[in-house]
C-alpha cells in the first residue's frame, strides 16, 4: 500500500488479524519517505511483512516510471534501516526451490544447505552429491517475487497503459461501484500477462485496451482461491488470497483508495485444492 496513505489504510486491513504497533507505523512513515528521496522512486509502497522465527522482515517496494516493470524491493528488520534485495534470476529461483524449506529464520545471512543426490544417466551410474547453498536473503527475494507474480491485485481501471506501453496510474479512476466490487471480474492481476484474454468478442466488447491489459482474477485456478468479503461494517471490500495466506487487498468502493499488503510467513499454501 502506498506510503502516503499508511495511516488509514492499515485500519482497513486490520480485520485480517494483523496490525502494526504504533511505533512501527511512525517509524515506517518516516523511513519510507527517506527511502523515496534517496532512491528517487516515484512511489514507495509498504509491501508487507514476512514473519520469521527470530525476527520479522519488513518489505518495501519502490516504483519508477513504469509501474509494472520498474519495481525494486527493499527489506528491513527494524523499520529504519533498509537494504536492497537482489533482483531475481532463473538460477536463483532454482536454487531456492531446492534448498530452502520451512519457516523463515529471521536472519538474512542464514544459509540453507541441502544435499542433492544426482545420479548419472545411462552407463555412468555414479552418485554425485551436490551441495546447494542459499542465503536467506535470496530466499526472501524469490518469495517476494513469487507472491507478487501470483497474487498482486488491482481494481479494474486503476492503471492505464499508454500506447507506448508505459503503465501508470489512472488519475480519473473514481473507484468501483458497490455492485462491481462484489464481482471477482473487476479485479486484475498486476503482473505481465500470462494467459492473455481469449474470450469471445461478446465479452470483450466492453473492454478497452488501455485498461484491460491484465489478467482477470476470476480466471485463477483453482476456482475459489480468493475470498471476497465486505468488512468494517461493509464499507470496505476486502479480498484475501487463499493461495498465499496472509495477502489482503482492500478497496473502498466509489473512491480511488485501494492497496494490498502481505503479512504472513512466506509459505505457499500447497494444500489449497484439498481445503476448498
Amino acid at each position, binding site marked *: 500500500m502506498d506510503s502516503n496513505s499508511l495511516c488509514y489504510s492499515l*485500519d482497513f486491513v*486490520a*480485520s*485480517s*488479524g*494483523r*496490525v*502494526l*504497533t*504504533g*511505533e*512501527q507505523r511512525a517509524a515506517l512513515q518516516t523511513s519510507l519517505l527517506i527511502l523515496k528521496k534517496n532512491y528517487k522512486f516515484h512511489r514507495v509502497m509498504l509491501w508487507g511483512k514476512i*514473519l520469521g*522465527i*527470530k525476527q520479522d522482515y519488513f518489505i518495501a517496494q519502490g516504483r519508477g516510471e513504469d509501474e509494472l516493470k520498474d519495481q525494486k524491493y527493499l527489506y528491513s528488520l527494524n523499520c529504519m534501516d533498509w537494504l536492497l534485495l537482489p533482483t531475481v534470476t532463473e538460477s536463483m529461483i532454482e536454487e531456492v526451490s531446492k534448498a530452502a524449506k*520451512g*519457516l523463515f529464520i529471521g536472519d538474512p545471512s542464514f544459509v540453507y544447505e541441502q544435499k542433492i543426490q544426482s545420479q548419472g544417466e545411462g552407463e555412468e551410474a555414479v552418485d554425485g552429491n551436490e551441495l546447494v547453498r542459499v542465503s536467506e536473503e535470496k530466499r526472501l527475494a524469490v518469495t517476494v517475487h513469487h507472491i507478487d507474480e501470483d497474487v498482486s491485485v488491482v481494481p479494474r481501471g486503476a492503471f*492505464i497503459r*499508454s500506447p507506448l506501453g508505459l503503465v501508470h496510474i*489512472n*488519475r*480519473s479512476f473514481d473507484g468501483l461501484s*458497490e455492485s462491481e466490487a462484489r464481482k471477482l471480474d473487476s479485479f486484475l492481476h498486476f503482473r505481465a500477462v500470462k494467459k492473455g484474454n481469449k474470450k469471445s468478442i461478446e465479452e470483450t466488447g466492453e473492454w*478497452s485496451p*488501455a485498461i484491460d491489459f491484465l489478467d482477470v482474477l476470476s480466471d485463477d485456478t483453482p476456482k*475459489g482461491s480468493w*475470498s471476497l*468479503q*465486505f468488512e*468494517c*461494517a*461493509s*464499507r470496505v471490500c476486502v479480498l*484475501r488470497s*487463499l493461495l498465499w495466506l496472509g495477502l489482503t487487498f482492500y478497496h473502498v468502493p466509489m473512491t480511488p483508495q485501494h492497496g494490498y499488503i502481505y503479512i504472513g*510467513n512466506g509459505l505457499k499454501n500447497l*494444500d489449497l485444492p*484439498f*481445503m*476448498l
Partner: protein
Amino acid sequence: IRTMEGPLENRGNTEAANFKALLMKDSTKSKRNLYDHLTQLLTKVMDEHTNNVVDVIEEISHDVKRDLFNGIQSSLRDLPQFTAAELLTEQQRTLFYQPDDIIQEDKMVETVLPNVNEIGFYLEQAEVGLGREEMQRIFLALKNLVDSEQLPRCRLWGKIFGIESNYIVAEAEYREGEEDQESIEENLVEEERKPESLEDEAEINPLPQSIYKSHLDVPKEAIGTGANKFAYYVCKEPGLPWIKLPTVSPAQITIARQIRKFFTGKLNSSVESYPPFPGNEANYLRAQIARISAGTHVSPNGFYQAGDEEGDEEDDIPHDSCEVNPNFEDVQASLMVESLSSWVHHVQHILQQGRCTWVNIAVKPADDSNEEIEGDEKEEYLDEVEPEIGPSLLTPLSQDAGQNLHNSKKKKKKAYGWVLKIGEAFQNICQVFRKN
C-alpha cells in the same frame, strides 16, 4: 470558424461549411453527432483542467458519452435501496444503546468481562489485533451476550476466517446446573429406535450376521470437564445474534486432526473430506477450537496452581482444573522471555483418543457371536488396555519441543513450536507468543 479575407474566402467558407455540416450529421446508431460531442468534450476539458489531458482524452470522451445516459433516466425516482452496509449498521446500532431497565447500582459490580480495551492494547503491541473500532464493537457484542444468556464468565476467544464470512468466537463458562441437552436428546432417540429394530428382525428370515464389529464410539466428555469445559458462541459480525456451538465429541477431534479444510462461513454446510468428518461445519469449528485451546493456551509459571490436592500423587489421572495462585508474584520480564520453561499450559492436553481423560472402551463381545471368535477378541481387547497418559496439566512449554506437531515433517531439525519476543513498548514490556 474564422472568416478569411480575400478571393479564396468564398471557397474556404464553403469547404468549412461542408465540413461543419458533415460534423453535424447525426449518426445512424445514436442520435448524436460529432460536432456536439467534440464541443462537450472540449468544454469539459476547459472546466476541469485535467493534468496531462492528452493522455487521458479517450477516457474523458467515454465519460462524456456515458453522462448522456444518466440524464435520460432521471425522470424515474430512485427507490431507496438498502445496501448490505446499511442493514448491518442498523443492527449494530443496538450495540450502542443501554437498556433502560438496568438500574445503576451504587456499589461496584464485579465485571464479568475482562477489560477488552486493555487487552486490545496489549495485543496490538504483539502485532495481532482487529483494529480499534472492531474490538470496541466486539466488546459491546460480548456485553450483550452476557446479558442475554446470563453467563457467569465470558471472554473473547478470537476470530476464525472463512471464505464467505468469518466467525468471531467467545468462550464462556457454563451456567450452574446446565445439562447437555444434546446428549439427552440423543439417548431418547436411541431408545425409540431399539424396539423398532427388534420387531423387524423377528419378521424377516435371519440373514447371516456379519462378524464385523463396528468401532465403538468413544463417549463424549460431560460438559464442564475436559474438552467441553467451556461453551463457545459464534457470530459473524458484532451486532448479529450469537449462536451457541454444540459440544464436541472425541471422534470429531480425531478426524479433525487428520483433515485440513477452509471454513465457508455457514454453520450448517457440510464438511467433505477424507476420512469423512462426522458432522457439519459447526462441529468442525468446535473441534478446531478445542484443539487450539488445548495446544496453545498458556500462562506464566505459577499463575495457576493445581486445585484439589488430596494427596493422590500416584494417580495417573491428570488434574481437572487449576486455580489462580494467590501467592503469585510478578516475575521479571527479561527472565520470562529467555526460557520456555517459565510458561505452562493451563488447559488440558487432548489425548490421542480425543478426550482429556482416558476411557476404557473395551466391552464384552455380544452374546450371539461364535464362541471361537469370543476367545480371540477377548485377547485383543486385553492387549489394548493401556490407559493413555497425556502431559499433566501444568507442564512447561519446554517439553512441547519434543512432541510431534501436526504438520511437521521435520526429523532432524527442532520443531519450533513457539516464538518468544519482547515488545519494545516504552513502559510496558509484554511477552509475545506466536504458535507456528
